[in-house]
């Protein structure tokens, strides 16, 4: 009943906003104005709120720097940000509005692969380039037929690589031969990452002793963790998002499961280690896009500027990726002197050796970026650099 009401509200909102499809077929109108419109859709509220907020901070820092430096070719960047409320439907509504009503030149978003994939067909239909900063599921940049989606790009590594990194890390560095997996069955990112991990770990000669599922939004994982405990794994791979991971870690410790938990970039959030989860996750590992402890001048300089703007708050990987995404789009517009959708699309497809905060970015023929991953260890609630794994 409530869901039907929600759907109805969403439909009414869609009509009210005038963002529904069909009325826009003049891409690049924005270029004719005095500003360059860039749309960002992000989970600013809801279950994955810190993902969206962090990317948003990164994008805003980039926009500020561009506009304070005189804009691009004399035009200021106008950033329009829409909240997806961590919901698939919200992502679709936001993208319809950004393309149809605001007529943006390019889109940035989302972090969650499931929401990026829900919004991608709209960007494809409207021929609007979409650059996702952090969606790592393999088929995000593919269309429904499995071909490369012409307008969808990303600047992060993909899950088959991330899964391999953690499988090798578990097998070689932790010397774990039997591992259990606990994945979010309702989350395409989690399912994809778990699959990649399991395949690689088995190929290395390890055993997956137990595979359990949950559904994002649930609170109680004791039943699954009890089943896992019965199999005595040496580590547990939990490729979910931070909200559930912190609950899972807390409950695992309550049940006397003391083995390390491993995860992916979905863990990257300051709220991962709040409350009881801080002690529960101590010593656990996850793979990520960048480390704050990277000593390179690019990274340290970015951190300094970020902290100056956001009251000393540290940037996570999501902030760095958001910053890179915005700067890449700005560079393409600057180099080509044009800001229509086709030019940006062609620019993204041809991007080579861009020196970003999160490393060297080259977009390949599959519209993915091949980049190294870092393994981070949680120490005293902070993410400490452990090692870098090259592709």
């Amino acid at each position: 009943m409530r869901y039907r009401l929600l759907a109805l509200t969403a439909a009414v909102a869609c009509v009210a906003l005038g963002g529904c499809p069909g009325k826009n077929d003049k891409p690049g109108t924005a270029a004719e104005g005095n500003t360059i419109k860039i749309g960002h859709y992000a989970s600013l509220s809801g279950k994955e709120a810190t993902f969206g907020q962090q990317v948003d901070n990164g994008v805003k820092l980039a926009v500020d720097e561009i506009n304070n430096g005189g804009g691009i070719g004399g035009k200021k960047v106008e950033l329009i940000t829409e909240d997806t409320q961590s919901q698939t439907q919200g992502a679709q509504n936001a993208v319809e509005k950004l393309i149809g009503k605001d007529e943006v030149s390019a889109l940035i978003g989302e972090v969650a692969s499931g929401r990026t994939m829900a919004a991608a067909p709209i960007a494809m239909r409207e021929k609007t380039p979409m650059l996702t900063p952090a969606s790592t599921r393999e088929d995000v940049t593919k269309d429904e037929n499995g071909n490369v989606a012409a307008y969808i790009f990303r600047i992060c590594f993909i899950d088959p690589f991330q899964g391999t990194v953690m499988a090798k890390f578990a097998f070689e560095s932790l010397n774990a031969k039997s591992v259990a997996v606990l994945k979010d069955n309702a989350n395409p990112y989690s399912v994809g990452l778990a699959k990649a991990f399991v395949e690689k770990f088995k190929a290395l000669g390890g055993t997956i002793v137990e595979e359990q599922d949950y559904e994002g939004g649930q609170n109680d994982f004791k039943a699954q963790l009890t089943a896992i405990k019965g199999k005595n794994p040496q580590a547990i791979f939990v490729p979910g998002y931070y909200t559930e991971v912190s609950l899972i870690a807390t409950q695992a410790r309550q049940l006397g499961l003391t083995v390390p938990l491993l995860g992916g970039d979905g863990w990257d959030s300051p709220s991962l280690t709040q409350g009881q989860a801080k002690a529960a996750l101590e010593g656990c590992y996850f793979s990520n896009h960048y480390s704050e402890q990277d000593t390179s001048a690019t990274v340290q300089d970015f951190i300094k500027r970020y902290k100056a703007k956001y009251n000393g708050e540290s940037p996570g990987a999501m902030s760095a990726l958001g910053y890179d995404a915005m700067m890449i789009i700005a560079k393409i517009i600057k180099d080509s002197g044009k800001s229509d959708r086709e030019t940006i699309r062609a620019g993204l497809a041809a991007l080579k050796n861009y020196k970003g905060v999160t490393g060297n970015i080259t977009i390949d023929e599959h519209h993915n970026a091949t980049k190294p991953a870092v393994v981070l260890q949680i120490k005293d609630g902070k993410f400490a650099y452990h090692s870098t794994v090259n592709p």
Partner: protein
Amino acid sequence: MSEFLQQVINGLSLGAIYALIALGYTMIYGVLRFINFAHGDVFMVGAYIGFYAFPKLQPLLGDGYGTAVAVLLAAMIGCGLLGVTIERLAYRPLRSRPKLTVLITAIGISLFLEYTGQLPVVFGADYKTFPTLIPETTYTLFGGVSIGSTQILVFVVALALMAALRVVVLRTKIGTAMRAVSMNMNAASLMGININKVISFTFFLGSSLAGAGAVLYAISYPKINPLMGILPGLKAFVAAVLGGIGNIAGATLGGFLIGTAETMTAGYISPSYRDAIVFGILILILILKPSGLLGKGGAEKV
């Protein structure tokens, strides 16, 4: 075997919380004969009262059980007052109207609390981490079965509150009045019982149990958000119906059964079915024994 026992403990500690919420449904049904669908959202508000009360109370009482008890009491009193206010403003003016009117009003109150709570000036739509009230220690029992201090606290508080409720309902004057009102409101009124006072008290009692349940739920699953009351609220409602709506012992039994059924489904069948099984039980009960397990029309109605 130890895995099975572990699942039983997990299920019972979840069930204890459902039972506390179910008691509120059943008591309000007992006196007013309608389902207070806003009850799950009163529960949600309870978690936020605990969340905001903790930083205020901790400097006064320090770490440890003193603060935990104070946070629990704050949530209970806050929820109790919220329940009384809802009844006074939304349900009392409709008392003589058809039950359906009140029922729809309750759904309205429920949505009002959920979506007002999501406003940034109220609670905000993002997930908040509930503070750690008691240090977490895990005790290993026979055969490798573990029980955490949080789970022990949940059992102790839930059972103590259920016992206290029983005393209030069966041994006190106001409890006798509640039972009288639940049997026949008009007759009770003719006997000189102040109906409004009894109904307000019932709402206070039921809602404060939801507040206690909320704090116990939040320390067990320390991520809170304005929509957190929907599912536990529905499951507690199922528990109340399973035990026999209007029956206090039934609500307790129903809560424990639903908690255990849910955990067993997740552990031995598939976590994806845990909610389906709970609501499947509701359908079965409505078909096979509409009055619920312990509901036998009239007996010990409150």
